[in-house]
């Protein structure tokens, strides 16, 4: 299964969800398919899911979707425990597991040697955590997750490699401002400090 094919079926399911789209090629592919102000790009390895937890706790009436990766999740697996403990009902975490540190040179991650991130999530206490291996199963799992009033984790086992897409032309700080202004506008609340008058 290709990550890009998963993202293609995800795109029509997304409307006004806030998304943490994280790292490297995943972020670029998603941006190419679904450029939108509600995509937050600013995150470094290990912090995608924690940032999603922060968004979900801060805006409990708004759905939050995180696109995470195997290497990132393995760096900070305690994040799954915090999802289980805080239980944000509006949070869906999608983990694209390509079994490699692809951006980091291509060597295998622990999931190539049997580590199971969905089982880790369940062990942490997240009831709805499953591993999917086909685009059809991915579609079904994410559609169910987006309707559920409980946190969900979908671990998608994907091939290495990605789609050649045009890279976005903005930097992370610019994206942060755009995201925050979008939330200010759609939620009617002030997020960034006003300059001194």
């Amino acid at each position, binding site marked *: 299964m290709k990550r890009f094919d998963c993202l293609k079926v995800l795109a029509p399911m997304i409307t006004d969800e806030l998304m943490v789209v994280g790292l490297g090629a995943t972020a670029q592919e998603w941006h190419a398919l679904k450029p939108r102000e509600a995509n*937050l790009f*600013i995150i470094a390895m*290990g912090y995608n899911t924690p940032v999603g*937890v*922060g*968004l979900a706790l*801060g805006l409990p009436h708004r759905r939050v979707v995180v696109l995470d990766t195997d290497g990132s999740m393995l760096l900070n697996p305690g994040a799954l425990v915090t999802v289980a403990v805080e239980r944000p009902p509006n949070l869906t975490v999608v983990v694209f597991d390509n079994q490699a540190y692809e951006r980091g040179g291509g060597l295998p991650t622990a999931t190539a040697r049997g580590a199971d991130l969905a089982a880790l999530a369940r062990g942490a206490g997240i009831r709805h955590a499953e591993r999917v291996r086909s685009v059809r199963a991915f579609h079904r799992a994410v559609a169910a997750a987006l309707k559920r009033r409980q946190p969900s984790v979908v671990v998608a086992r994907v091939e290495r490699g990605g789609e050649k897409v045009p890279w976005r032309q903005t930097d*992370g700080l610019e994206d942060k401002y755009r995201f925050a202004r979008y*939330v200010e506008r759609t939620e009617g609340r002030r997020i960034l*400090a006003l300059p001194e008058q």
Partner: protein
Amino acid sequence: MDRQAGPRAILEGLKAAGITLIATLPDENLTELLKLVEADRESIHVPLCREEEGIGICAGATLVGKKTAIIMQNGGFLNSCNALTTTALQFQIPLLLLIYYAGDIGDRGFATVGTVTEPVLHALGIRTYLLRRMEEIKETVHQAQVLAWDANRPVALLLTKDVLGTRG
């Protein structure tokens, strides 16, 4: 002496600053403060597994309009340096760091972590204030948050045993 007076003043400062999401990881010296945070119904308390995830959680909450703080030991601050660098500093996220100062003068133990704490904060360019006197607590906590907000950066307060009520 009322051992809860300092922790109460810290929480009052956090409230005066409008902070409504507080991520924490325990230390023996933070126990009274964390009990007050947990009991407070007006703010969201997020207990952490590791301090660096707290930086991510606070960053996310900040970007949807919350004012946030993280309470941790200085050993935990050292755990969170990568998150502070790649998330809070790089993307200019205001965040209040309340750091218990293990290895402070007069302590037995933790001298090594105490020795590196302030140099590492300075290396990260994080403005740092040391809290030792009870009467300065509430106002300094509030003002530190104002600075973080104005500068779009983390600001650190070092909490000594004197203000946590655990000296002697």
